[in-house]
């Protein structure tokens, strides 16, 4: 089974006018057809930048390097026409804040119709019928009446459903959901995630779920990659990543979550903060905050190690979970 999308050595540098600042330091990641991949990390770790770079949506100040293959077609450095044909058609994207991701001055029917005209050549009555079907599919009640509404007349959850309908309009192979539920209430969150899962299975659509919420990712993804300071630091199947994480950063993230079962304990925050992209340490970017760091960690960026098939971590001292932070925290 070949990868649908394969990122290798993907780098992004931003031209700040004075100098280039590297935001992404060579990301390797692949997504198979129909697969759900989670991308986890704190804000600024490069999760969104990775996929905006894939679609060429970072604007004129970003320099993108490395390679992105979509079914064998190189997207890095591809002409705008090629990228435009990929956006929305092969790879669609939905965003964190649905209310501001929809144009406030256009009716939602028109905004969905725009994508239908673009990717499927539908106009007029046919487009209207298909828009209705899509709105219905994403669970908007009384879709026929909603068609001529403006985004501000809908709730946040409904706007995200509209965004999803718009993303489905192109019948994409891959949907990038960039923090799709962060701006929504907890109950709406669950509904939207359930909807995304359902749509993915029905349409055999792959999905990348970008989130800082480990719980959301654990429940909805087959495979998870953890990002820190512009790099992937650990990647494994969801089960294994949450059951037996090896990288101290992943372990730290899990320690910061409360357990529903098990004894009451004080939540362990990771000390320190994420380094600025302009002030990265020479070695492992996590070393200054790492409980297991030693001299070698500060010397060079650790390379990936395959721990078990499908489980890799960029750490010189991978260790089983539980032996370190958690036991200390409980004690």
């Amino acid at each position, binding site marked *: 089974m070949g990868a649908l999308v394969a990122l290798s050595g993907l780098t992004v540098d931003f031209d700040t*006018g004075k100098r280039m600042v590297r935001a992404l330091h060579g990301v390797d990641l692949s997504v198979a057809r129909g697969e759900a991949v989670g991308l986890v990390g704190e804000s600024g770790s490069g999760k969104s930048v990775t996929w*905006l770079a894939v*679609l060429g*949506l970072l604007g004129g100040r970003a320099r993108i390097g490395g390679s992105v293959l979509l079914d064998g077609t190189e997207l890095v450095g591809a002409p*705008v026409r090629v990228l*435009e*044909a*990929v*956006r*929305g*058609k092969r790879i*669609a*994207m939905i*965003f964190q*804040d649905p209310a*501001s*991701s*929809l*144009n*406030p*001055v*256009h*009716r939602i029917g028109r905004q969905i119709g*725009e*994508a239908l005209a*673009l*990717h499927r050549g539908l106009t007029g009555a046919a487009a209207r019928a298909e828009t209705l079907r899509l709105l219905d599919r994403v669970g908007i009640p009384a879709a026929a009446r909603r068609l001529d509404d*403006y985004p*501000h*007349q809908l709730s946040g959850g409904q706007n995200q459903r509209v*965004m999803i309908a*718009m993303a489905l309009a*192109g019948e994409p192979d891959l949907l990038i959901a960039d923090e799709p539920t962060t701006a929504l209430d907890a109950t709406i969150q669950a509904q939207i995630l359930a909807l995304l899962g359902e749509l993915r299975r029905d349409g055999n659509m792959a999905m990348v779920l970008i989130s800082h919420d480990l719980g959301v990712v654990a429940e909805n993804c087959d495979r998870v990659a953890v990002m820190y300071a512009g790099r992937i630091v650990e990647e494994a199947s969801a089960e294994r990543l949450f059951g037996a994480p090896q990288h101290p950063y992943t372990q730290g993230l899990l320690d910061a979550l409360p357990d529903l079962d098990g004894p009451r304990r004080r939540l362990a925050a990771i000390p320190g903060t994420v380094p600025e992209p302009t002030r990265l340490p020479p070695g492992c970017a996590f070393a200054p905050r790492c409980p297991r760091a030693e001299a070698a960690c500060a010397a060079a960026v650790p390379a990936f190690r395959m721990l078990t098939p499908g489980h890799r971590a960029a750490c010189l001292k991978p260790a089983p979970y539980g032996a370190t932070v958690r036991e200390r925290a409980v004690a």
Partner: protein
Amino acid sequence: MLRYLLSRLLRAVLTIAAVVTFAFVVLRLSGDPALLIMSVDAPPEAVEAFRAAWGLDRPVWEQYLRYFVQVAQGNLGQSMRDGRPALTVVMERVPETLALTLPAFAMKLLIGIPAGIYAALNRNRLADRLTMVISVAGFTVPSFVLALILVLIFAVNLGWLPSGGAESWRHAILPVITLGLSGAAILARFTRSAMLEVLGQPYIRAASAKGLPWRRVVTDHALPNAAIPTVTIIGFMVGSLVAGAVVVESVFSWPGVGRLLVVAVSNRDLAIVQTILLLVAMTMVCANLIVDMLYGWIDPRLRTARAAGG
């Protein structure tokens, strides 16, 4: 929507009434009209007779009401210079002024808006910097200086165009350019910042992510949103169509409302000054009304708020 419209209209009428009241107060404050018109050494009986004839011996509130009724009937008094009705004198000049301000207004829109959009789309590139340098120069140089520079170049040195007067359309060229350039510069800046604001919005990125070509993202998604703040400044420009050319008309000896105002002020021809004041207030109020209507048309969020009785 109708309720909203009526409330706006009522507000417009109130604004005009306030201006009329203000004009009345100013007129009274500026001295005893009887003494102003008659000479100071006029016999007291004559002054009294004058007061009785013009109702100046009545209580102030009665004078105020009378004055109000007169204004409402379009009677704004007589020009002290030739005794003709003030309204007639002023209205004669309005077409002259519009002959300058309307083409200048078109020039502002046709140059200012495209320049602003172009600059925003090329942010921080040479094209943007150049446009903005010209724009800053355009609106920081006072219009009388710009007028004199244009006269110096095109009238004095090159001799292509007349330096003043209003005999032919060729006389209008320099004043129109003077008015148009500074307005275009202001509009370019406004349009640019409105566009930059909009281009940074998430829905622009979302529209690109949908697969829309950049050109269509700009025309279908960015421009309609950037139009909202730009309409405000265009509204101001509409409001100044009647009296926005005072300086330029003076420099180019153009017989419009602005020049009439300057002459009337220096002659203390109060009826004329007051008429122009009211006319300016009316155009401003009308322009505001138009802008409000446009907002509702462009921005569906406002429409909903208004339908809800906001």
